[in-house]
C-alpha cells in the first residue's frame, strides 16, 4: 500500500489538477452552514469542519433532480433523458459515516428488478476522497453501527489530518489513478503512519455514545404495538428535520412541472419525508399512518428493524445529525434508551414472577 503526503497548502494545486476531469464537490460554508457544493474557486473549500449540515448524499441524490424533460413540437412529444449522467464526479472531504451511507444508498437504489439508473450511473462515475475523524462529536456513534471514525469503506482515497498535512492512502483503482495523476505528492514517512494510527486509536476511544443495536433490532421486532411509542412520540412536532439531514433517508416524491408558455415540461423528484402527515395518504382518502405515533415509530422501525430484515445491515450510519437537528430534543439516544427499557422491564418482571 502506497502512502503519500498532501500538504494542506497544496489543496489548491489538487483542485487545479483535477477540476478539468471531474466535477469537483467539496465542503464549503453557506450562510454559516457547511454543505457540499460544486466548487469553482478553491479558496472556498472548507477544511476545518466537524461534519456538514446536509450530508454528501445531496451530491448524488439532490433535493431536486430532473428525471427527464419533454417538449411539444407540433403534435409530437419529444422526451429528453438526462445527458449529464456520464460526467465524472469527485467528492472531497467525506467523513467515514457519510461514505458508508453511499453503500446503503446503492443497496436501496439497486434493489429488485427496477434499478434507479440516475443514481447508480452517477455513483459509478463518482470518486470519493474521504477524511478520517480526529475528534468525533459527542452525538456520533459510528462504532455502534459497525463503523469506525477511520473506516475506509466506499472510499477511493483516504486522508488522515496530521495537522499541517494529510496522509493519503489509495483504497481502490480510482484512488490509485488519482495518486498517479498527482505525481507531485510527497512520500509518507514512518512517523506519519504512526501518528495516523495513534489518531485512529484516540478517536475511537473518544466516542462516548454507544448502543447495542442487535438487542434493539430484536426488541423492535417483538414490540410494534407497545405503549412505549406513545411516550416516544409525544413531544415530536413532525418537523422532518431528522429525515432531511439523514444520510440514508431516500424517500422522494415525483412531480411533473409544466411550462405551457414555452411548450415544455419536466418530471422531477424531490425529497419527501415519512414524518409528513400526507406521506401515506392514498387517493381513496385512507391514511394508514394518520397519527404522529405511527410516523415516529415508522422511522425507528425502518432504520433499525426493516433495514436489517431487507438488507442484512442497519439503516443508520451513526452520524448523529438527527440528534443535533431535533428542535424538541426528542433525540435518538433517548428513544433507544426507552426501547431498551422495555427489555429491562420484561426481565425484571420475569425475575419477580
Amino acid at each position, binding site marked *: 500500500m502506497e502512502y503519500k503526503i498532501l500538504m494542506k497548502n497544496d489543496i489548491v494545486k489538487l483542485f487545479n489538477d483535477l477540476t478539468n476531469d471531474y466535477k469537483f464537490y467539496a465542503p464549503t460554508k453557506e450562510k454559516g452552514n457547511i454543505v457540499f457544493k460544486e466548487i469553482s474557486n478553491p479558496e472556498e473549500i472548507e477544511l476545518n469542519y466537524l461534519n456538514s449540515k446536509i450530508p454528501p448524499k445531496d451530491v448524488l441524490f439532490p433535493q431536486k433532480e430532473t428525471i427527464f*424533460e419533454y417538449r411539444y413540437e407540433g403534435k409530437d412529444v419529444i422526451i429528453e433523458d438526462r445527458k449529464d449522467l456520464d460526467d465524472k464526479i469527485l467528492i472531497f472531504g467525506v467523513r467515514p459515516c457519510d461514505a458508508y451511507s453511499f453503500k446503503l444508498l446503492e443497496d436501496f437504489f439497486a434493489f429488485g428488478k427496477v434499478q434507479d439508473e440516475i443514481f447508480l450511473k452517477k455513483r459509478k462515475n463518482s470518486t470519493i476522497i474521504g477524511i478520517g475523524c480526529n475528534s468525533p462529536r459527542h452525538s456520533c456513534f459510528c462504532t455502534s453501527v459497525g463503523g469506525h471514525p477511520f473506516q475506509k469503506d466506499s472510499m477511493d482515497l483516504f486522508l488522515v489530518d496530521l495537522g499541517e498535512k494529510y496522509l493519503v492512502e489509495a483504497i481502490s483503482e480510482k484512488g490509485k489513478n488519482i495518486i498517479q495523476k498527482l505525481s507531485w505528492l510527497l512520500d509518507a514517512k514512518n512517523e506519519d503512519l504512526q501518528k495516523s494510527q495513534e489518531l485512529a486509536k484516540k478517536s475511537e476511544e473518544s466516542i462516548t455514545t454507544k448502543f447495542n443495536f442487535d438487542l434493539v433490532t430484536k426488541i423492535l421486532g417483538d414490540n410494534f404495538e407497545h405503549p412505549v411509542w406513545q411516550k416516544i412520540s409525544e413531544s415530536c412536532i413532525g418537523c422532518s428535520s431528522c429525515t432531511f439531514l439523514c444520510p440514508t433517508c431516500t424517500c422522494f416524491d415525483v412531480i411533473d*412541472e409544466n*411550462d405551457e*408558455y*414555452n411548450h415544455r415540461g*419536466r418530471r422531477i423528484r424531490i425529497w419527501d419525508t415519512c414524518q409528513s402527515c400526507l406521506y401515506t395518504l392514498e387517493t381513496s382518502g385512507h391514511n394508514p399512518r394518520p397519527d404522529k405515533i405511527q410516523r415516529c415509530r415508522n422511522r425507528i422501525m425502518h432504520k433499525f428493524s426493516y433495514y436489517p430484515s431487507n438488507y442484512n445491515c442497519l439503516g443508520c450510519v451513526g452520524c448523529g445529525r438527527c440528534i443535533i437537528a431535533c428542535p424538541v430534543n426528542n433525540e435518538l439516544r433517548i428513544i433507544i434508551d426507552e426501547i431498551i427499557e422495555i427489555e429491562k422491564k420484561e426481565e425484571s418482571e420475569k425475575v419477580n414472577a
Partner: protein
Amino acid sequence: MTESSLESKKNNKDWEPKIIAFLCNWCSYAGADLAGVSRIQYPPSIRVVRVPCSGRVNPYFIIKSLTDGWDGVIVSGCHPGDCHYISGNLVARRRFAILNELLEFFGIEPGRVNFMWASAAEGERFAVLIRKATEIVKKLGPNKKFEKKW
C-alpha cells in the same frame, strides 16, 4: 422563460409588457367592454381573465402569474359599496393591502401589481388606468425576479 428570450426582450426597444388583468364581471369587465365599444384606444398589453367578483381573486393567482413570467398584474373590481355581491370587494381590498405590502417588502417593484376600481359606466377611466399601468410596467422592464429558471 429561457434566459435568451429574456435578454432579447430587454434589448428590444419595442418590447410591450404582458399584463394579466383579473376583471370583475359586473363592473370592470363591463367597463372594459364599454371602452371597446366607444373605440377608446388603450395599449394592447393586457390579457383579460373574467372573474365573478374581485373577491374571487385569490392572492395565489397574482403570485402564480408572476412566477409564470407575466410582467404585470392588474386586479380590478367595483367601487366599494357597489359590489354586486355586497361586500366581495371590501374583503378583497384588505387582502390586496396585505399582499401589496408584502410584495413591496420582498423587493418586487411597486407598480408591477396594481389594484383599481372601475365601474361599468367608466370606459374612459378604465382606459386611462390601463394606460397608466402599462407605462409603469414598461418603465420597470421585464419581470426577472420570480421566474422559475430551468
